[in-house]
């Protein structure tokens, strides 16, 4: 998967490139709008991360000119959180919009969602190590043992298994499982994850759900 980052702020560009490369993407960085547009038109990328405030050609102009020729998905990154900006970006043909400051895990989740777009998340069995979910019968087993989970615990585990190896932020988990679309002063996600782990991890030697301090949680067989 090839990604293009158009970002003039050097540190932002660098850490985005580093983070995304480490997650298996091939990343190129352009520091100006003109360079970015040139690169985007010259070669085929799977996704473009486009900053709005760029010297010379700004993000909107790059997007407008790009859309005349190509349909490469574009994720806008901006420090301006205004409804009009958001609408303008989406009208010009941006596929998603992320406001700075954002958590890297959030960005990663959106990048993955955009790259997977159109490909349905399969209804086939999901598993990690000896933990299995049968989404059709809503059954969870570990090492052949049936797990008795509440509806929300099930939804949480399903999210973890669908997003295996991705570090999920608390905000993202709250949004996906409870449809709470904002930060709040609460540790609901921590408590919920702790209870889930008590059921699916505590009785077993091999742990599958891990806390990533300061970031969130990840599900993987280590």
């Amino acid at each position, binding site marked *: 998967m090839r990604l293009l980052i158009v970002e003039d702020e050097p540190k932002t560009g660098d850490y985005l490139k580093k983070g995304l490369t480490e997650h298996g993407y091939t990343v190129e960085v352009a520091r100006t709008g003109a360079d970015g547009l040139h690169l985007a038109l010259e070669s085929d990328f799977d996704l473009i991360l486009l900053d709005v405030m760029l010297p010379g050609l700004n993000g909107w102009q790059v997007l407008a000119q790009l859309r005349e020729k190509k349909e490469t998905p574009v994720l806008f990154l901006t420090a301006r959180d205004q409804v009009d900006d958001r609408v303008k970006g989406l009208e010009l043909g941006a596929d998603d919009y992320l406001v700075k400051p954002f958590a890297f895990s959030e960005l990663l989740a959106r990048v993955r969602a955009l790259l997977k777009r159109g490909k349905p998340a399969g209804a086939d069995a999901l598993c990690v190590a000896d933990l299995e979910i049968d989404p059709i019968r809503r059954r969870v087993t570990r090492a052949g043992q049936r797990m008795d989970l509440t509806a*929300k615990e099930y939804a949480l585990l399903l999210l973890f298994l669908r997003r295996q190896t991705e570090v999920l932020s608390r905000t993202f988990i709250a949004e996906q499982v*409870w449809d709470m679309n904002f930060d709040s002063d609460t540790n609901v996600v921590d408590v919920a994850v702790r209870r889930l782990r008590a059921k699916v991890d505590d009785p077993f030697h091999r742990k599958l759900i891990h806390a990533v301090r300061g970031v969130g949680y990840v599900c993987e067989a280590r």
Partner: protein
Amino acid sequence: MADARGRPGWLSWNSLTARLGALFALLSAALLAVVGLMLVHALEAELRSRDIAELTAKTAQLREALGDFESVPALRARQDDFFGAVYDRERQAIVVADRAGRALLVSRELMVPRELLTGFAGQPGRGPQAVDWTQNGDDWCAVLAWGTLGQRSIASAAATPVVLVVALNRSSTNLMLDQFYRQLILLLAGGGLVTSAIGFAVAWHGLRPLRQIDATASAITADRLAERLDLARAPAEVQRLGASFNAMLARLHESFRRLSEFSSDLAHELRTPLNNLLGQTHVALSRPRAPRDYQDVLESNAEELERLRKMTEDMLFLAKADEARTRLDWQTFQLRHEVDKVAEYFAVVAEDRAVRVEVTGAAPVHADRRLVQRALNNLFANAVRHAPPGTPVRVRIDPGDDGGVRLAIANAGPGIAPEHLPRVFDRFFRTDPSRPDSAESSGLGLAIVQSIMRMHGGLASAASEADGLTTFTLRFPAASAHPR
């Protein structure tokens, strides 16, 4: 006239002093003029009626005298006898005319207007009549009467009716009246000037409290908001204005105080995580360490940065709410549905703390669903955090009688001290800054709740009984009362 700040001065036509002064002058001049005119008129009427009375008396005397003369030639021959001693040759004139209005005898050069004379001569037997006319610049007034020649003679059959005219030159009287007029006009002009000066002075003096307000207001700057108007001796009208002005100053003062307090609170709130970040990073970099140690530092930094990010987001939300830049996505929905959803979200935490959440009542509200969810979220977080284990958190939804909706969320616990109640919705306000869980709360949650309610034209309030229930109430206005 304008002062240095480009505002109209006290003597321009925009000024109350000038208007009041001018009005005062105008009114007094009008009053003087009316009284003066009435006086002159009365004087003139009085003088004329005296003149007429004099002429009438004279006419009566002359009519009497006419009887002594049997014919016109006899009258002519002894005219000085007829005119007699009472005749004032300077001012008076006497004419005797026949029935056709022709003059038979004239005491001096006087032309009684022909039409007056013939008009009267055409009405035999008519009583005395007073008439006025002007001749050669002189004003005349006369009494016309019928008389009879030779009434007392033995041959009374020879009695001849004649018209007797006794005229008086009133020019000197009119001259005097004219002089009186001129003096009156001078008096009016002078009086007008004096009263307008007095009017200006009175208005100037009466409006002094306004100038004091002006002076005080000019002296007020952001750092001198504690200034107040002294209203002890101000008149009633100005007292109300001054009181409103003082109240406005008090509100401004309070807002400024909160704003500056907020700025220093913000700096303080930022300082703690920044200090941690800087300190930890510097310590970590001061010597080579094992990867695990670096990871520890980075993880801790990530936590602090997450706090900063959240705080920035909340601050931005509040700033946008203050500037009314948030567009609300109005829709009508069951408040109960959102409460249940948020209650479900908090179910695990509540269970963890052995706190029950009980929801009663239902009502539809017209509001922005996500914002309401966010407000509920903050209130739930607050209630669940402070409710002691084993106690319930009770949520009640009531449709109000005014068409609005009331939501109350109550929890037991230590309560909020009365002196803290008015400030719980302030930004960064914490009843106990050293509370161990203060790291968990940004101190902006309740401020966000209040600003969300304000955006909806509603209000959030808090009540607390000593070691009893703490209740937060959200009031949604009736759908018809929405701000936009």
